[in-house]
């Protein structure tokens, strides 16, 4: 039985060297080049692999972002997704994980009503906010089960999925009733580059754009108005004091001086 998979991706700056606007104390991202969040490539690849594994399945890529975020939808279609949906509008600006996950859950509900969704895939974390929480928050809004840090989908059918979760001390195996949300980690696959056929499809793809009203949400529930947190002030991390250079004529002498310092500072 075929599956409908949704994969959530974010358009983020390609570099983590982001300046702070001294006037507002906010990170200054306007004009920075953007691309698909690196970890989301693994989620896209997994959606495509599931399509290959379960014939007749389809994958829809979903993002909440600016109009320019359509680029990451096209990128995911080039890599093998079938369709894309852009959730966008001025009301979504300035959202945090709380507001963004609500918008994602409302869009997933709408997709689910059109064609039942079995699995929603997420990346490990974004390279801008980097909290690694939006997938599970989305699951919570939907009241669906979830698994984070998934490194393998062992088995899947339309009613359940068995997944491996990478914990700090080993691997958990869990069975989730579907529909469910799964946040992936890098070990899950090796992403492939877009194919020529995929690139053609991505150029032609028509991407519906949904606003808060289309999702049945009030503008106050999304974006900065719906956010439960706000950056008060961003800054560069405190600079480190100048270091000590360990000098010596021989390696043994340097080793002795280094070990002296480690003991003096009670580091060992």
């Amino acid at each position, binding site marked *: 039985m075929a599956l409908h998979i949704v994969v959530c991706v974010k358009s983020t700056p390609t570099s*983590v*060297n*982001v300046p*702070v606007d001294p006037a507002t104390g906010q*990170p200054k991202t306007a004009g920075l080049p953007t691309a698909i969040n*690196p*970890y989301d490539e693994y989620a896209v690849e997994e959606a495509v692999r599931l399509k290959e594994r379960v014939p007749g399945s389809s994958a829809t890529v979903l993002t909440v972002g600016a109009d320019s975020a359509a680029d990451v939808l096209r990128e995911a279609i080039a890599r093998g997704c079938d369709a894309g949906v852009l959730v966008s509008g001025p009301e979504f600006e300035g959202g*945090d*994980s*709380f507001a963004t996950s609500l918008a994602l859950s409302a869009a997933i509900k709408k997709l689910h009503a059109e064609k039942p969704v079995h699995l929603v895939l997420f990346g490990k974390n974004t*390279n801008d906010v*980097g*909290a*690694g*929480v939006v997938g*599970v*928050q989305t*699951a919570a809004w939907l009241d669906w*089960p*979830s*698994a*984070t840090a998934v490194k393998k989908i062992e088995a899947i059918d339309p009613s359940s999925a068995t997944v491996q*979760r990478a*914990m*700090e*001390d*080993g*691997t*958990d*195996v*869990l*069975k989730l*009733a579907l529909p*469910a949300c799964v946040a992936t980690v*890098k070990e899950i696959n090796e992403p492939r580059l877009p194919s020529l056929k995929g690139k053609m499809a991505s150029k032609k793809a028509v991407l519906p754009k949904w606003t808060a009203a289309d999702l049945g949400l009030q503008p106050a529930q999304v974006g900065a108005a719906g*956010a*439960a*947190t*706000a*950056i*008060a*002030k*961003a*800054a*560069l*991390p405190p600079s*480190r*004091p100048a*270091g*000590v*250079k*360990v000098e010596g004529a021989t*390696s*043994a002498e340097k*080793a002795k001086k*280094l*070990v002296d310092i*480690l003991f003096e500072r009670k*580091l*060992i």
Partner: protein
Amino acid sequence: MANSGILVVAVSQRGALPPATYELVSAGRKLADALKQPLAAVVLSDKASALAADLASRGVDKVYSVEHASLAGFAEDTFAKAAADVARKEGFAKILLASNVAGRALAARLAVLLKAGLATDVSEIADDGKVSRPYYAGNLVASVEIKTPVAVLTLAPMSFPRAEPGAAKAEIVPVAFDPGAAKTTFSTYQPETSNEIDMGSAERVVSGGRGLGGAEGFKKIFELAHALGAAVGASRAAVDSGWIPYKHQVGLTGRSVRPKLYVAVGISGQIQHLAGMSSSGTIVAINTDKDCPLMQMANVSVQGDLNELLPAIVEEVKRRRGAAPIAA
């Protein structure tokens, strides 16, 4: 009723509490004293009683003990329901969790269930309630305002001291729990086969990079790590070369660590590597190139050939301590 009080959520993993739990208790204690609010902990486990007794001796005012067969293995939805029940009933204002896989997932669910603002990887909590957390892989640190009456926070590991057991014993309140129909079934756990120290909670990490020249080179890293009681990390160059498994990778696309001592051997210190370790306490760099970024930013830099320096350091440490390795 206005929300008040601080709740530490203690998730048992394989029947024990991860050491990060005690860091939550000490951070919670400091906050509770500053705000003049009570500090409670909730233990979620299939065998909660012993763990509750442990927490009760570490400076909390009250321990809620939720013991239920469904809390044996970590299921994100079931654990969140159990924690949310306690948080709601008592109207806690700040919920503290560990920034590990379980704590992060649980925090995410709790934030939605409690309609609460969420901040992860928090390294500092100010008395006015604002918290510091990293953005852009640690290139920026922001002070974040939580706009909701309830705040859910996961605390960065190694950012707060670990609460020690004391003579005072807090009251333990058993709490009944009805998980309802389970949508997540925990089936098995396969432990990591090696008995290496986990990087995330290690006080000391020794990392190796391309300068090691091959998988053989990592033997020297393991020897030094063993002598120092440290976990082993690596740069992406070393991982990509197949010298050591990916789980050891430190950096933007690896893990973030914050040990008291980080020793980088044969690692140049590209920004993607620094993203995973720059908030470590003391950074020691060992490198032939005194001008590389890691040597420039290190607290202690040793210029020289690692092939000579590493054995010399191991020997010196052993000489000073007797042959016994240091406990992690």
